C-alpha cells in the first residue's frame, strides 16, 4: 500500500515539474538543456594535496588535488544505501519472522544456495564475498534505472541531468572488482597447494607452457572486467543515442531491458565466473 502511495506521489511530482518547466520555457523565462547521456565520468571535486603528491591533478584555481569522480561519489551513495538498508532490515530479529525479516531471510537463502551449489560444504567461506559482490554489482547496474534528477545552472541555462552515474559503466570500478576476484582465487590456490604447488600448476604439462598459462591467468580478470564494463557502457551509449533519436515513449520499455534485465544478468554472470575461477583454483589440489 505504502509503495503505491510513494509511486503515485513520485509520478505526480514528475508531472508537475515537467509542466512547470514547459510553461517556463514557453514563456521564455529559462532555457532548459539536458546534456548528452553518453559521456565519461566527470570530476566532481578535488581533495587538495601538496603538488608533489602522486595522482595529483592541477585544479582550476591552480592548486593541486586528487580528483574525485562521479563514479566514486555514486559508490559512496550506494555504500550508504546498503548500510541503511541492512541496518534497518537486521534490527529486532525474532524467532517467528515478520514480513520484513522473511524478505531478508529469503535474500540470504538465495545467496546461500548460490554458493552451496558451487562449493558444497565450503560455501560458508565464500558467502560473504559472493553476496557482497552480487548485490553491489546488481545495485550499481540498476542505478540508471532509478535516476535522481539533478538540477544545476550553467551559462544562464537550466541543466537537468541524472545526479548519479552507474559505477559499473566506468572501467576503474569493474577492473577493481576483477582484481579483488583475482586476489581471491590466487590466494585460495596458494592456501590450498602452497606457493610451490601454485607455480607448479602454472607449468602444468611442461615448463614450456608457462607463458601460455600466465597469459591464461591474466585473461581472467581482463575477461570479467571488460565484460561488465562493455555491457554497462554499451547499454548507456545505446540509450543515449536512442534519446537523441526518439526522446519520448520509445526509450521507456528499453530501459527495462538495458538497465534492469541486462544489469541483473551481468551481475549474476560476474559472480558465477568469480565462483568458477575460485573453484578452478581449488580443484588443482589432486
Amino acid at each position: 500500500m505504502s509503495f503505491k502511495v510513494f509511486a503515485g506521489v513520485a509520478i505526480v511530482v514528475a508531472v508537475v515539474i515537467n509542466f512547470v518547466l514547459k510553461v517556463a520555457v514557453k514563456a521564455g523565462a529559462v532555457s532548459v538543456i539536458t546534456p548528452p547521456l553518453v559521456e565519461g565520468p566527470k570530476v566532481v571535486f578535488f581533495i587538495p594535496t601538496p603538488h608533489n603528491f602522486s595522482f595529483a591533478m592541477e585544479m582550476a584555481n591552480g592548486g593541486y588535488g586528487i580528483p574525485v569522480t562521479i563514479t566514486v561519489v555514486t559508490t559512496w551513495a550506494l555504500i550508504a544505501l546498503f548500510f541503511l538498508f541492512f541496518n534497518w532490515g537486521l534490527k529486532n530479529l525474532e524467532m517467528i519472522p515478520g514480513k520484513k525479516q522473511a524478505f531478508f531471510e529469503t535474500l540470504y537463502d538465495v545467496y546461500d544456495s548460490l554458493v552451496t551449489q558451487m562449493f558444497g560444504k565450503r560455501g560458508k567461506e565464500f558467502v560473504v564475498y559472493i553476496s557482497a559482490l552480487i548485490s553491489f554489482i546488481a545495485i550499481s547496474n540498476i542505478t540508471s534505472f532509478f535516476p535522481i534528477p539533478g538540477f544545476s545552472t550553467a551559462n544562464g541555462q537550466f541543466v537537468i541531468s541524472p545526479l548519479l552515474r552507474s559505477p559499473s559503466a566506468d572501467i576503474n570500478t569493474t577492473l577493481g572488482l576483477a582484481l579483488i576476484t583475482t586476489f581471491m582465487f590466487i590466494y585460495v590456490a596458494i592456501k590450498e597447494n602452497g606457493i610451490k604447488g601454485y607455480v607448479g600448476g602454472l607449468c602444468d604439462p611442461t615448463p614450456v607452457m608457462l607463458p601460455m598459462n600466465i597469459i591464461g591467468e591474466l585473461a581472467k580478470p581482463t575477461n570479467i572486467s571488460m565484460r561488465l564494463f562493455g555491457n554497462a557502457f554499451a547499454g548507456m551509449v545505446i540509450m543515449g543515442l536512442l534519446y537523441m533519436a526518439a526522446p519520448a515513449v520509445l526509450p521507456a520499455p528499453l530501459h527495462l531491458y538495458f538497465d534492469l534485465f541486462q544489469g541483473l544478468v551481468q551481475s549474476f554472470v560476474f559472480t558465477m565466473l568469480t565462483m568458477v575461477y575460485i573453484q578452478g583454483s581449488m580443484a588443482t589440489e589432486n
Partner: protein
Amino acid sequence: MDMMTAKTIILAASALGAGLAMIAGLGPGIGEGYAAGKAVESVARQPEAKGDIISTMVMGQAISESTGIYSLVIALILLYANPFIGLLG
C-alpha cells in the same frame, strides 16, 4: 600532407574500424542463439531440470560472449579514447 588532412584520415579510418569491429557481433549472436535453442530442447525433454539448465546456459553464453565484448571494447576505444590521434604528435 598537412596536419588537418592527417587528422581527418585518422578519424575517418577510426570510425570505419569501429564499425568493422562490430561485425564480430555475428559470432556470439549465432552461438548464443544455438545454445538457447538447445536449452529449450532439453527443458522440453526434462522440465524438472529447468533451473540447472538455465544457469548452465547463461554461464556458457557469458563465456562465448567474450569475443563480442572484446570487439565492443575495441570499438569503444576507437570512438571515445582514440590512441592514434596522440601519435600525430
